[in-house]
């Protein structure tokens, strides 16, 4: 968690993604025009979110088997950053849609599905906020975490595929013809996904380190952190 090599890799990948994303050639398509470059920035937000939620679920399972509260801390911080990524993904998606599909919200199945996924995890935060006892909170939120993740996967993957959608790759749509990426885009897309995910990982580890300091402080000096509600 405190090593630098993957952080350096993250920065290099992101610099490549941004520079290459703007400058390298992309396929010429009607309606989307240059905005197809958003593929390198909007889509990795969602990939990052899913990966972060997956890691959080893994830590929830580890907590239930070990009882170590630090695992619960890890799980909740991964969800926090995952939710940030999902908000960014949703906002950027709406911005993109405003100028290509005509309106920011069009009740597209993928938009609805991901909005539901966000609501599921916001409900996780509500659940956590309501329980005061640490051990109980950790156990109940771990159970909900696993349940929510297992339910979210079919909802995001299966549902949009069954229904016609504006999103590229589903049904008939303006934009890409088929969802096989042009090989020139793959060159920037895959590194971009890895880079954005590593950034999310970095952000999460920073939050975890902060929480560990607060956690230790709380155990050493309980009076000082009386006002901290979310240790």
């Amino acid at each position, binding site marked *: 968690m405190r090593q630098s090599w993957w952080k350096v890799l993250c920065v290099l990948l992101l610099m490549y993604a941004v520079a290459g994303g703007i400058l390298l050639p992309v396929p010429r398509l009607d309606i989307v025009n240059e905005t197809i470059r958003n593929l390198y920035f909007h889509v990795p937000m969602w990939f990052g979110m899913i990966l972060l939620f997956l890691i959080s679920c893994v830590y929830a399972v580890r907590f239930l088997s070990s009882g170590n509260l630090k695992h619960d801390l890890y799980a909740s911080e991964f969800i926090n950053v995952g939710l940030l990524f999902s908000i960014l993904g949703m906002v950027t998606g709406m911005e993109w849609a405003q*100028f290509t599909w005509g309106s920011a919200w069009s009740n597209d199945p993928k938009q609805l599905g991901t909005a539901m996924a966000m609501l599921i995890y916001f409900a996780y935060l509500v659940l956590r906020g309501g329980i005061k006892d640490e051990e109980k909170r950790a156990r109940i939120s771990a159970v909900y975490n696993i349940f929510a993740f297992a339910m979210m996967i079919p909802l995001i993957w299966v549902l949009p595929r069954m229904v016609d959608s504006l999103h590229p790759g589903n049904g008939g749509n303006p934009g890409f013809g088929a969802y096989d990426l042009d090989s020139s885009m793959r060159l920037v897309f895959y590194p971009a996904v890895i880079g954005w995910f590593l950034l999310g990982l970095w952000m999460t580890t920073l939050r975890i380190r902060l929480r560990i300091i*607060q956690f230790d402080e709380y155990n050493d000096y309980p009076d000082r952190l009386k006002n901290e509600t979310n240790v």
Partner: protein
Amino acid sequence: MRQMYKRTYLTALLLMTFPLFLRAQGQGTEMADLMRSNGKIYVVVLVLATIFAGIIAFLVHLDCAIKKIERNKKS
């Protein structure tokens, strides 16, 4: 001075003939290399700015939290 004005004028005139070469494009899909002012590249700029703003907000929040702890530790 006059020579410089004349040269500038001629260069501008030459540059203005560029659009005549665009016939080679074919179906006329607009891209940024043809016209810088095509609105749609700015959507990409907007998306990048949004993501950047989100990350900066996160960093600011983190910074405040660390500052609070350091202040607590000092007292």
